């Protein structure tokens, strides 16, 4: 394996053994259960998994935005050495405005419906920078143009409901980038966007990473999208990280059976596959997860050991007792 140049860069986000529980109707759900990973400056990391795997909860917990039903039950989240899990709400808010930008899945929820689009962007700029009104407005126009909003100056005076879903999403991305943050956490930010716009947004993130050392944690269910612009991929399953690695390897020869199944279930633009891989069954109940490997009931390679011994003990290596050898399948 060749070392990516990113290995030399300083760690910006260091998530250590993060545990998040959500109070659900059936009891306490371990939505994020001992999750550890790092994001370096200028690095783009894809956090990939299917619904319910805990990727969104992990991201929300990282920046102190858990819903009232959820709480951090253990672990640390270090941003440039500062532990975010120990901060007060007002301190977190300052960090979210200036150092970390967050793009939620649903932009409609992120925007205030009764405030003009321009004000929502300039408000952030004026709270966290020294820009005056007209400079903030000019910067807002630049931001909107950068994320592909047509006729940006005209959009500033409109309200969110006057924009299409795709445009609202781009406004949310512009707000997250407004104060030139060190880290952007984006939760499926481009799912609602057209393919051509999606490519434009991911290229913008890649350019900011290269030019300004912006670090990006990009949460997605779409392995092909993640493959197109990230440096590293982390795969989550049932509240845990099962494998992580450099993007080229994770999208050609992942070693964990779940990561591999996910890859072979993904349709290809390059060629028609004779048959897509499927994964039978459903993820386990996270109120009382099984003691061994959480993927064991759905895994072809499982042995009795997988039912009793938790392969999370193997992390940061691949969390599997019988991993594939890493050769392209």
């Amino acid at each position, binding site marked *: 394996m060749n070392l990516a140049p990113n290995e030399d860069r300083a760690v910006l986000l260091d998530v250590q053994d993060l545990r998040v529980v959500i109070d659900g109707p059936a009891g306490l759900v371990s939505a994020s259960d001992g999750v550890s990973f790092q994001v370096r400056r200028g690095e783009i990391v894809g956090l990939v998994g299917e619904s319910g795997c805990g990727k969104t909860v992990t991201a929300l917990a990282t920046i102190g935005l858990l819903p009232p039903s959820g709480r951090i039950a253990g672990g640390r989240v270090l941003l440039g050495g500062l532990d975010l899990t120990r901060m007060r709400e007002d301190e977190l808010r300052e960090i979210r405005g200036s150092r970390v930008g967050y793009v939620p899945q649903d932009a409609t929820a992120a925007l205030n419906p009764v405030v003009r689009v321009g004000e929502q962007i300039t408000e952030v700029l004026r709270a966290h920078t020294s820009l005056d009104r007209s400079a903030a407005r000019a910067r807002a126009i630049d931001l909107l143009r950068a994320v592909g909003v047509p006729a940006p100056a005209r959009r500033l005076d409109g309200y969110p409901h006057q924009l299409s879903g795709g445009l609202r999403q781009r406004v949310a991305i512009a707000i997250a980038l407004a104060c030139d943050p060190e880290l952007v956490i984006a939760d499926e930010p481009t799912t609602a966007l057209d393919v051509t716009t999606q490519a*434009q947004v991911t290229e913008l993130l890649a350019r900011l990473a290269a030019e300004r050392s912006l670090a990006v944690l990009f949460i997605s269910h779409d392995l092909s999208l993640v493959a197109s612009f990230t440096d590293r991929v982390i795969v989550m399953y049932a509240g845990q990280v099962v494998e992580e690695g450099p993007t080229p390897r994770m*999208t050609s020869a992942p070693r964990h059976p779940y990561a591999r*199944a996910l890859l072979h*279930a*993904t349709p290809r*633009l390059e060629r028609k596959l004779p048959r897509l891989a499927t994964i039978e069954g459903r993820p386990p109940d996270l109120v009382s997860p099984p003691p061994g490997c959480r993927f064991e009931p759905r895994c072809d390679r499982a042995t009795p050991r997988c039912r009793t011994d938790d392969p999370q003990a193997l992390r940061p290596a691949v969390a599997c007792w019988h991993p594939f050898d890493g050769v392209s399948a």
Partner: protein
Amino acid sequence: MSASPLLEARGIAKRYRVGRAVLTAVDGVDLTIGRGEAVAVVGESGSGKSTLARILVGLEAPSQGEVRFDGRIVDPTSRGSRLSLGARVGVVFQDPYGSLNPRLSVARAIEEPLIVHRWGDASARRRRVAELLEAVGLDPDLGARRPRGLSGGQRQRVAIARALALDPELLVLDEPVSALDVSVQAQILNLLADLRRARTLAYLFISHDLAVVRQVAERIAVMYLGRIVEIASADELYGAAAHPYTLALLSSAAEVEGARASRIPLQGDPPSPIERPGGCPFHPRCFRARERCGREDPVVATDGSHRVACWYPGPVEPEEVRRLGPGGRDV
């Protein structure tokens, strides 16, 4: 067996009045679907693909043009035409949550089209529902459940079983997998492939996703601003696309195996179906546009079954790649 194609649409246009303006959702579309043929219509939001699908299956009347199913004109205003079409065309929508009545059991949801079309007696219908559940890979015991108790993938299977109830010749699938997780999406795409192996079933598959479409379609139409700008067999389209918009779309789509080589950026702003540009509707965003493109509607160039509505069709030339530079020029 009649010689006419299964579905034939000629000169379809659909315009809506929006205040004082006119929104043109579909603008002169010709499309034929053969018996047992899987055709996909691909486009981005606002391309008119869903409106076209609704017109083709008689859910909406076109402002212009006509649709023939098995040689007979489809007339959405006639109850007889709607009923006979309803028996021969099944429809599956994107949202597996919204398309099923939450108060009906799964079995009852699948049985409903049978009841509407007075198909068999109660016991024959029960047998048919069990058959259909099996055909879509669901446990017959699931029939007693309500949609609420099902996963997204199971719901979409129920929607497909229901669409298949009357043994239709055409299944119209409007973004049927875009709300599903990857592993579940794979199950549904495999199921759609299996269903066509077992019977003569044509598909009209509406999607924005060129990778998904590759798994199911034999022929692909690319729509832009209400028009089919290119239509070709799947191999032709993925291997030798010739319309600049198709080339841009293919170059923007993410590939699992390695990063995009060079994305062809679209110029300017996304189009508005209300203020349609003159000449070729794509010309304001086209990397190849010349003076003529803004003036004259392109004539359709035909090469066998490959049709392209462009004055300057063809693959991306090395000179064009150099001129456009690495993707992202428009950001």
